């Protein structure tokens, strides 16, 4: 396409929207038909389309961590096995974190889309399978020390051949997962999404033909790259550095540093993570794909959200992640928390670095942890095994022009809060409390969002639980004079006891927030507290009416109003707020 006309632009916009809609429909099918709440309620999946070379041509607004990683996962699979390994009706699966995955629970299913015998491209869905075997029920072993403890690792293997299940592969998969029925249901939901893509792309290609559609998707990528380049050109050139820490790896109590130097030059961003600590024994090591996805995520927060999301928009963003470090784990390093935990921190360091370049778009740190709580056992009534991967929402950081959001999924994902009614119906817990934590939002001119407190009563004779949290010791940072947000915690009150204690106190775990395979019993209560966001700007500059509103809403205590914001509570509704 040599000359650009308005009709070209309209046609391309329509094509972009149609391709994105196909991805959205794939996601709706996945969400509605999967068996696990992590799909139905948590939206922990992503759907995208690729050209024959593995370049993303469209995606939908599902989990951004997987979206960034999908660029690598699909390319690496095609590089390894070759596009010619795909025949009509074939689906390949893999969950190998060292081959472009974010972490082991996330399975990629990839299908070639053919039209008139010609390969048009690929449909891909990545989903978080809640139970994948390994040492911990629910897949996130907070104390794993290598990938083999984290679950069943699949290199790219054919799951469906010519439309027929490859039964040997299914047998291996279902035999090694603790909840095979859930795995079967969730994977079939993902396979269904690929069928939707195949059908809808077929309709599109019937109308426009393969050649013209490929030409236009190429043009969309070029325009997206040019648009993102212009967005980056608007950021002042320079080098911007930032460092934060993971507070421990679950195996020792040492903190581990993540360092980034973000170089902005001539419409390109280079995020250089040289200086980050070596990879650690515990499961907080991030894969290269995680680090890249987190960097993309941060840049997308600071640029125009209308830039079409295809391979083009990723092109001007370069990532340097030294192998063997916390941001580019090598085999056989444990990695499952590198996505849920370290991923958040990598987004944070890139945003922290660029806060100097774009102070009007900057925000303080968000809660930056998944507060992952995994559990499972045998249902006493049915004899069926169950397992679940549960995560909590956190407070987001106060920003230059607004308060942080309360109780929202950490920015690596867009996952929804699983409704209490669903949770209590599916699993043998009774949710005794779910509420915002007063004073957990970092004080500031723009306050950090609040974290949550959840109290779960064990209703089964026994349940095996595990946890993988960070931000329990090192709080989310404030910015420009704002104060840190509240920290996380997971504690237990044994049946008959009067107070909550840490799992280290109760069970001798090395880490109070990263552990696996603890058995709790009927009547025990588990209390999960998520982190709040950091505050932005001097709290004393916060508008008095906003402080009083926070008091009335019980977001802050009278003491915080008085001591941090310099506002004296007035009247009984404010003075007795908590």
């Amino acid at each position, binding site marked *: 396409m040599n000359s650009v006309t308005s009709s070209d632009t309209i046609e391309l916009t329509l094509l972009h929207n149609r391709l994105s809609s196909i991805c959205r429909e794939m996601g709706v099918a996945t969400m509605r038909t999967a068996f696990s709440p992590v799909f139905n309620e948590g939206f922990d999946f992503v759907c995208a389309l690729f050209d024959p070379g593995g370049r993303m041509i469209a995606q939908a607004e599902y989990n951004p961590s997987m979206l960034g990683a999908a660029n690598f996962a699909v390319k690496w699979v095609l590089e390894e096995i070759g596009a010619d390994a795909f025949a009509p009706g074939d689906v390949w699966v893999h969950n190998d974190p060292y081959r472009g995955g974010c972490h082991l629970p996330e399975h990629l299913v990839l299908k070639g889309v053919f039209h008139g015998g010609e390969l048009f491209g690929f449909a891909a869905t990545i989903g978080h399978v809640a139970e994948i075997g390994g040492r911990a029920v629910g897949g996130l072993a907070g104390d794993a020390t290598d990938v083999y403890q984290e679950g069943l690792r699949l290199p790219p293997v054919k799951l469906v051949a010519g439309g027929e299940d490859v039964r040997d592969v299914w047998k291996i998969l279902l035999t090694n997962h603790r909840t095979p029925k859930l795995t079967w249901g969730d994977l079939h939901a993902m396979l269904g999404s690929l069928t939707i893509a195949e059908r809808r792309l077929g309709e599109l290609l019937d109308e426009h033909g393969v050649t013209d559609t490929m030409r236009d998707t190429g043009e969309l990528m070029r325009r997206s790259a040019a648009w993102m380049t212009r967005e980056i050109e608007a950021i002042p050139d320079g080098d911007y550095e930032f460092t934060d820490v993971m507070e421990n790896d679950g195996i020792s109590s040492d903190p581990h540093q993540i360092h980034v130097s973000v170089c902005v030059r001539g419409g390109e961003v280079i995020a*250089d993570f040289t200086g980050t600590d070596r990879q650690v024994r515990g499961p907080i090591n991030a894969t290269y794909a995680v680090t890249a996805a987190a960097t993309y995520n941060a840049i997308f927060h600071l640029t125009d959200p209308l830039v079409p999301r295809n391979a083009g928009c990723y092109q001007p963003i370069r990532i340097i992640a030294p192998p063997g470090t916390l941001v580019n784990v090598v085999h056989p390093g444990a990695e499952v928390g590198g996505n849920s935990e370290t991923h958040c921190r990598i987004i944070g360091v890139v945003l922290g670095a660029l806060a100097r370049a774009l102070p009007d778009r900057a925000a303080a740190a968000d809660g930056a942890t998944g507060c992952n709580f995994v559990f499972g056992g045998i249902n006493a009534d049915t004899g069926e095994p169950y397992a679940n991967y549960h995560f909590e929402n956190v407070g987001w950081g106060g920003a230059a022009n607004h308060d942080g959001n309360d109780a929202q999924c950490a920015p690596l994902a867009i996952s929804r809060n699983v409704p209490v009614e669903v949770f209590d119906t599916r699993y043998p817990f009774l949710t005794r409390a779910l509420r915002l934590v007063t004073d957990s939002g970092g004080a500031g001119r723009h306050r950090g969002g609040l974290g949550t407190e959840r109290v779960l009563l064990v209703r089964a004779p026994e349940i095996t639980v595990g946890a993988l949290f960070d931000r329990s010791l090192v709080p989310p940072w404030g910015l420009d004079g704002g104060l840190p947000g509240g920290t996380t915690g997971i504690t237990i009150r044994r049946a008959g006891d009067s107070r909550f204690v840490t799992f280290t106190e109760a069970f001798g775990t090395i880490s109070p927030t990263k552990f696996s395979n603890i058995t709790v019993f009927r009547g025990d209560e588990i209390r999960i507290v998520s982190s709040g966001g950091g505050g932005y700007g001097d709290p004393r500059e916060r508008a008095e009416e906003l402080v009083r509103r926070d008091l009335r809403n019980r977001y802050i205590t009278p003491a915080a109003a008085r001591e941090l914001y310099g506002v004296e509570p007035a009247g009984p509704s404010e003075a007795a707020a908590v």
Partner: protein
Amino acid sequence: MTPHTSTDRAARWEERGHADDYLVTSSVHCECCGRMIARHAWIAEAGGAERVFCEPACEQLYRTFWLPRHGGASR
């Protein structure tokens, strides 16, 4: 495959990655970006040594970004 962009005549594509060899547990990584190389590597001389890159663009980034900042030292 991306066209040859190196100024070095000896630069070439080679099969270096061994992602499909399941008896080998080590991996080959791009000396610039750090990405694992699945199969094909871009081999080019840079900073006084022959180096492995995932693509010519990484060789260029190595020359224009990595070398000026970090020198030829390995990570």
